[in-house]
């Protein structure tokens, strides 16, 4: 089960710069750690992360082992119309995850 938190302002006006904050539960395994039996734990980072707002892609990212575990991102989008912000990701192990939050745009 993927756990993620998306933080958006409760309501914004059309044209506003909207702060988007997302926090995703993911170990962002570097591939350089070893377990208690001495076996290398396979690298597993967020190879691909996308954010769509309505039908437009607003962010594409590739987060490697240089990004801290349980990645946090903050960026801004321009409010156009009420709609969902949808984050989708695929990690190096092929696991997919997604999270969505509704953006309410007045006017």
């Amino acid at each position, binding site marked *: 089960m993927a*756990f*993620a938190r998306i*933080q958006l302002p409760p309501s914004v006006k059309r044209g506003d710069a909207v702060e988007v904050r997302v926090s995703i539960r993911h170990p962002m395994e570097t591939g350089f750690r070893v377990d208690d039996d001495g076996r290398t734990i396979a690298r597993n980072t967020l190879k691909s992360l996308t954010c769509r707002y309505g039908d437009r892609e607003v962010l594409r990212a590739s987060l490697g082992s240089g990004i801290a575990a*349980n990645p946090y991102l903050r960026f801004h989008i321009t409010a156009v119309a009420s709609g969902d912000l949808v984050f989708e990701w695929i990690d190096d192990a092929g696991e997919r995850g997604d999270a969505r939050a509704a953006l309410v745009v007045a006017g």
Partner: protein
Amino acid sequence: MTRVGFACAAGAAALGLALVAGAAPAASRSGIDYAGADVRAIQADDAQNPGMLWVDRGRALWNDGPRACAGCHGDAASSMKGVAVRHPAWSAAARRVVDLEDRINACRVERQRRPAFARESEDLNALTAFVATQSRGMPIAVDVTGPAQPAFERARDFYATRRGQMNLACASCHVENAGKRLLAETISEGHGNGYPAYRLEWQAVGSLQRRLRACLYGIRASLPPEGADVLTELELYLAWRASGLPVEAPGVRR
């Protein structure tokens, strides 16, 4: 925080006498006050605090299954409010001091009729963080009198006794040298009010017992197994030392 010196284990008894059980120590500071600005900023903001991801998972577990916690306890925000501040506590059923993790597992086994969570499992840490966060901001107030008193006294003595290859007692750092520097870090008073906490070092949420075992590892002392009585009793003593400090779960620590 009263600064008391001690030279040997015999001094531990004197330390105990100076702090009468039930009379909590003078004003103390949470570990977050000793943390760097960045750690404080992350803890202060739920959007940034990775511990909230565990709280979210805990909420899902709270509501999960046919005999879910929610089935008996309803809305945790009301039913679990104030629970974390009085744990660890004496359990008449278990005939020992139990911490929040033990309480949750007891419910899970006896009421929910499910296998107990393993100590330090992600699920147990998540559920404990979720329950503890319902007491966020409330002052810690554990009962160390009555049946809990022998455990409290054992832990108090443990805290003041030197151990490990480095021959240090908990008090050596957290009473004698709180506020001083250890390499690039500032030694805190060693309170546990931020736990379960997201430790940057662990890159995950962990329990107070894990933090205690980490401390013992640091001074090259032998580690009691997870869930050992000595660790649970130490949690009780620490909660008493932290009397009045607010529950910060999920805390963020380096």
